[in-house]
């Protein structure tokens, strides 16, 4: 389990998938993001947009020893925009949403823009 805590009522466990969904949603809400793609497709170079319910496939979350999280996002972007700015905003938004939703510390958000959809 990615997050486990115990309080007086019992334990709380949150899976990496759940965090992945929040991260995916945060990133899809960003301007200029076309869709998330399956991280396993990177080698194929053929990308199919992930549908709702599959977002965790486009997100990779890892926890290091200090309980800090490293998030990787795999996306396609919209055409005709200033891409570095968009990616910057994605990093900011995803980090902010995760820290707010789960009270976890996000050390890194790595964005992989695999292609630009025209």
């Amino acid at each position, binding site marked *: 389990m990615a997050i486990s805590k115990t309080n007086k009522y019992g334990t709380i466990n949150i899976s990496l998938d759940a965090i992945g969904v929040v991260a995916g949603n945060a990133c*899809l809400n*960003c301007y200029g993001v076309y869709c998330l793609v399956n991280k396993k497709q990177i080698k194929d170079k053929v990308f199919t947009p992930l549908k709702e319910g599959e977002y965790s496939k486009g997100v990779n979350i890892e926890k290091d020893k200090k309980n800090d999280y490293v998030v990787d996002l795999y996306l396609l972007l919209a055409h005709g925009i200033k891409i570095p700015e968009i990616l*910057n*905003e994605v990093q900011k*938004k995803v980090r*902010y949403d995760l820290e707010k939703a789960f009270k976890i510390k996000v050390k890194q958000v790595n964005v992989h823009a695999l292609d630009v959809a025209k």
Partner: protein
Amino acid sequence: MKSIDAKLLKEMLISAANNLYNHYPEIDALNVFPVPDGDTGMNMNLTLSSGAKQIANRNDEDVYNIAKEFSKGLLLGARGNSGVITSQIFRGFAMSLEGKKVIKVNDLVDAFVSAKEVAYKAVIRPVEGTILTVLRESSDTLEEKVKSDTSIEKALDILVSSARESLSRTPDLLPVLKEVGVVDSGGTGYLRIVEGLRSAAKGVFIEKINATETEAKPTIFVPAAEGEGEEYGYCTEFIMRLGPAESKKQFNELRFRSVLESRGNSIVLVTDDDIVKVHIHTLKPGEILNYAQNFGEFVTLKIENMTEQHTRLHEGAKELSENKPEEPKEDFAIVAVAAGDGVKEMFINAGAKKVVSGGQTMNPSTEDIVKAIREANAETVFVLPNNSNIIMASMQAKDVLDGEVDVRVIQTKTVPQGIASCSAFNPDANADENEEEMSNVIDYVKSGSITYAIKDTTIDGIDVKKDQFMEIFDKKIIGCKKDKYSAFYDLVKAMVDEDSYLITAIVGEDISSEEANKIKSKLQEIFPEIELDVVEGKQPVYSFLIGVE
């Protein structure tokens, strides 16, 4: 008025950029979504300024050329989310004007509809209650209400008033706006833009109120260590407009890049239609310029001698150490960041060698910190940032001085933590032991502060009223009181528990010495068995800073 010509459009766009500039601080203050970092206004302002600069010297006959250039300027200068969206809005605006000499009222409607479509194209799941909503609703109203015989002024009136109405509805659409009690910041920026357009169309050109340009500071490259046999040469940067076709050669990006690569390194080459931007480090900038001129003419040019810069930086560093040969390097020194004369004095008394001015709302730059570390003249320097916003700058200072000084950043986030950490320093221990001990002590200090609220809002379920005093305990607001003294006692009571043995209260510049004495005797009454320290810190912004150990 029936139509807008190129000259008027240029005035309108510049006026829009100026109107945004005049209002950007208030837009910054509204920024809570997507991330409340208070930069929307500045980002939009920089984006629009870049567009305004692009068309400032153009005298085209056609509106299309002006709109196209403006949108190109926005694209190149886009900053942040709102800036990128604004650049898309004007891209759509310009696209629909293709081939037009003047804008008639129908064209104006088409332009805003196209702006909406293009802006929406780049977003899959638009969040309602943002600049996009304001854009969509105002463009729709425009399309609905404007007839072919409506005047331009009337049409722009409709646009502005519908944008304003739409903006006022944003809190209903986006819950986070309602919680904080603001309207959307990007939407406000858009409203300022259309207001600027309308004002100029009616003959009132909006000037910048404050003429100070907020130009980005030039970055100073500090060589990390002595480069071995590395070539420096000239840092050459230029922007070039290609063509005209009859007198210039055909531009081929691949070939151009390979020529650049054969003559230098650190190459950045960006092309956009007919604009080429080049950055290269080369030993012979003249050759590059001569070659590039075959394809077009330069828009801007900048060449700097990096070898000079390099030697100057190193000489500067040498001078600094050579000037004081009589002072041998000490083993350790502490550099702290603090605001307020009293607080600075506290750090000096606690053993800090240098204090850099700064704190909440006035962060020092990395350069300031680097300078203080160098002046501290020691083998190992401990840096106490004393504010979470300054930790990053301190880390950068550490990177800059890598190999020159052994810098240890102790991550203190508040002044009481900093003082405690500073007192934990032991000159007899080695650097690692000190770093560990100074970091450990942070966890034993509870920090609180009292400061005034700048607007009405609700945070963590507590109603905060403007000009009242908030009680902040370890970053959380635990209460809000009209009177700062009752807020202070309230907060201290919340912070103290049975293990507490020391209360440090640092009073701000708004509190007199007599008041400070009164506070001390009153605290003594409330907590008879705890040691007290009341200091006049004279810091701005915070009425009280409190540490409990």
